[in-house]
């Protein structure tokens, strides 16, 4: 029996094209596309910033950038990649696919959804306008006080940063509330919480993380703005403030933030690997539970970013232990993905390659993290390139690889075209090799003592050769991105195939046309298991019959 779970939103006439229809749209699919395109453009910008940094660092005593320029570039690189690329890419896929995956017609609040996107776009442009208004933010993406006080950062860069962050916080909070309500209220009949696709689970947990952690960042940034603009003294020690307050407030947000960055990609990978292994996700309950446990524990470990600030000795012990603990649920997921592939009928499509790449690279990054949870180790390598290696293995090898996997996986659904598999494989391998060339040597550099955020380094330290290799790797990554763009344009020029189910998938999005109609489903489907489309295609072997 069909059910309409909510009143039909204002429909987008398919023949409506043109700029105005896109500007006024409240259709989650169009908003999703806008997020993806905007975020990808920012990815190119952030990547260019990275290339500039790598050029500067390729040799000792580099002269490509001045110190101040370098500071602005690395600050914007970090800020862009985290707030303007990874989070919006996840939001874009979430927007497009969560309603489809749960069998709904749109998000719970379509107009708010549009507001989120436009706020994000405005915030990004606003932040970047700082380059022409006296200089971009230049105190690092986590902007420690008191460096960020007016006294030490007199240009307006940090104000742009702070206000941009506030706007982005608003966009993300609204978006998260939208996801939470949508997932609770608009699931198709029969889709109990233990039958939701894992990407929906991770979006759900991510949204809660965002809702509860972003306010801390808001407070931190508001207090900074008050200090800078109205002469308040929150972070000014001389007048009764405390600089450490910034770190606590920031990292109380900052640690859940890293899970906000990785969980969606984990969800994407949890969709891709089962399909290309021909098996359901192994250990679904454990994977769902580990997402919840990560969400829970994520709020308790923030002080492990502050081991070197002179914390009381016993607290070092506790936070170290807690940080080890949080590695466990992540490990569970890795085993689940491996278990899914074990004895499966593996198809190494581009999407699958990126998903497997995710697992391998994220594992390395995760192990880095476990190293750093050991306090004496952290004391040696904090603020060195070891941390940079860690961040990039989990965020690039992790989140970005996962997202590229999702791009290859869901591209046919969004556009009706297939990305070329051959070019896709070139993309993957060049990116994989490039990525390791850039970030593996950073481990050695970190242990050798190279600090992060320095605009150059001296001769004779032995750092030059690794930095040079890393720069080569960076350009390899850049080439791989170009390869991807070539793939995109070539694929779009070929005639559309409009296949609704190109991969023999399991979940509801594969029942619609490609691209889906504005209303998504003519009849809201009913589900009886985690793989409703598999059930449809193989009624004798349906999951609910077999007892999945």
């Amino acid at each position, binding site marked *: 029996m069909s059910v309409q*779970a909510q009143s039909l939103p204002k429909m987008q006439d398919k023949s409506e094209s043109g700029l105005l229809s896109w500007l006024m749209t409240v259709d989650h699919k169009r908003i999703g596309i806008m997020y993806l395109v905007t975020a990808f453009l920012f990815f190119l910008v952030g990547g260019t910033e990275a290339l500039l940094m790598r050029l500067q660092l390729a040799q000792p005593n580099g002269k490509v950038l001045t110190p101040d320029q370098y500071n602005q570039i690395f600050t914007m690189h970090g800020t862009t990649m985290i707030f303007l690329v990874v989070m919006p890419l996840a939001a874009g896929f979430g927007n497009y696919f969560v309603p489809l995956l749960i069998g709904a017609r749109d998000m719970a609040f379509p107009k708010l959804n549009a507001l989120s996107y436009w706020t994000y776009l405005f915030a990004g442009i606003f932040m970047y306008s700082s380059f022409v208004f006296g200089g971009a933010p230049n105190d690092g993406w986590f902007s420690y006080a008191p460096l960020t006080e007016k006294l030490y950062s007199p240009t307006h860069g940090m104000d742009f940063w702070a206000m941009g962050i506030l706007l982005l916080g608003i966009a993300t909070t609204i978006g998260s509330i939208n996801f939470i309500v949508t997932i609770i209220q*608009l*699931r198709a009949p029969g*889709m109990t919480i233990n*039958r939701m696709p894992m990407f929906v689970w991770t979006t759900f947990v991510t949204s809660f993380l965002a809702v509860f952690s972003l306010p801390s960042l808001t407070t931190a940034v508001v207090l900074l703005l008050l200090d800078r603009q109205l002469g308040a003294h929150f972070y000014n020690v001389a007048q009764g403030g405390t600089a450490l307050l910034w770190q606590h407030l920031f990292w109380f947000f900052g640690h859940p933030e890293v899970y906000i960055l990785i969980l969606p990609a984990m969800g994407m990978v949890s969709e891709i690997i089962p399909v290309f292994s021909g098996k359901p996700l192994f250990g679904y*309950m454990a994977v769902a539970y580990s997402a919840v446990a990560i969400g*829970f524990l994520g709020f*308790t470990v923030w002080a492990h970013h502050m081991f070197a600030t002179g914390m009381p000795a016993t607290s070092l012990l506790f936070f170290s232990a807690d940080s080890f603990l949080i590695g466990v649920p992540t490990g569970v997921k890795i085993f689940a993905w491996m278990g899914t592939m074990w004895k499966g009928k593996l198809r190494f499509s581009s999407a699958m390659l990126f998903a497997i790449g995710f697992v391998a690279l994220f594992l390395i990054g995760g192990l880095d993290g476990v190293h750093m949870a050991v306090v004496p180790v952290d004391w040696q390598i904090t603020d060195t390139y070891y941390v940079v290696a860690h961040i990039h293995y989990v965020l690039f090898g992790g989140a970005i690889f996962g997202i590229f996997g999702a791009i290859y996986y869901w591209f046919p659904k969004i556009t009706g075209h297939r990305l070329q598999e051959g070019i896709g494989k070139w993309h993957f391998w060049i990116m994989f090799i490039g990525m390791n060339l850039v970030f593996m040597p950073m481990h050695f550099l970190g242990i050798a003592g190279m600090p992060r955020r320095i605009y150059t380094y001296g001769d004779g330290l032995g750092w030059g050769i690794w930095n040079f290799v890393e720069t080569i790797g960076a350009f390899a990554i850049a080439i791989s991105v170009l390869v991807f763009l070539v793939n995109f344009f070539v694929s779009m020029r070929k005639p559309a195939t409009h296949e609704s189910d190109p991969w023999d998938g399991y979940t509801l999005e594969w029942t619609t046309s490609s691209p889906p109609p504005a209303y998504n489903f003519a009849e*809201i489907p009913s589900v009886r298991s985690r793989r409703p489309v598999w059930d449809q295609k193989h009624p004798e072997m349906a999951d609910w019959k077999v007892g999945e």
Partner: protein
Amino acid sequence: MSLILYYPWNWYPSVVIGFGLWTLAYLLLIGPLRLRFGWGKLPAPGQQIAFHFGTLIALFALVSPLDTLGDEYLFSAHMVQHLLLLFITAPLWLLGIPGWSFDLLLPRKQIVKLARMLTNPLVSFFIFAFVMIVWHLPALYNLALEHEGLHIFEHLTYLAAAVIGWWPIAAPDTCIAPKPTPPVRMLYIFLLTIPCTGLAAILTFAKVPFYPFYITAPRILGLSTLADQQLGGLLMWLPTHLVLLSALSLTFFGWFSSLKNNTGNHHPASQLP
């Protein structure tokens, strides 16, 4: 651990007799009275063990050397005592008391209203957080250490607030005050960590000792007042989170098992025509 040997056990008559009566009441409830009036089923052995274990822990917390340590020397020891009451005893008692015993109060409409109000997750959250925070304000904390009567009152309010606070999570199924659904319970558990983390963080990261009583108390174990306070904060941090994580996990897995046997009729969209 060897401290146990150095410091005395204080078998306070009020505590011993009080818990003795409490246990007796429980045994009567599930034993002769239950059989006489046909009130309901005997609680499972695990439940009974939970109840008695909760009582034993409370007894231990209040009469063992831990009590002396906390009342005279160490903030961290005092913290352990309170944590045992709030995070071990209270939930264990709730797990052990059979639901039908609460439902005996159903005929009393006013009590039903009161019970429903107190166990509403928003209300119980605030009661738990409020009581916990208020007793940590330096002035009140100190006062309780100096006046035995107030100290007893403090412990009683802790126990009461904890039982109320744990109700939405650990209470038995009753008609008088039903628990919220599992997902709401999980959210509630997560939210409980917030006042705990807040308080714990303040205690751990403070640069000055807060409680005059412990500033003037004799130093033992080589712990300075500040280090003692930090340790107290950390005990409030990780152990409580582990207890809450366990509660979260149990709720999650219980929820999933109940869904496995479900045909999908218990969620919003399927209730529409």
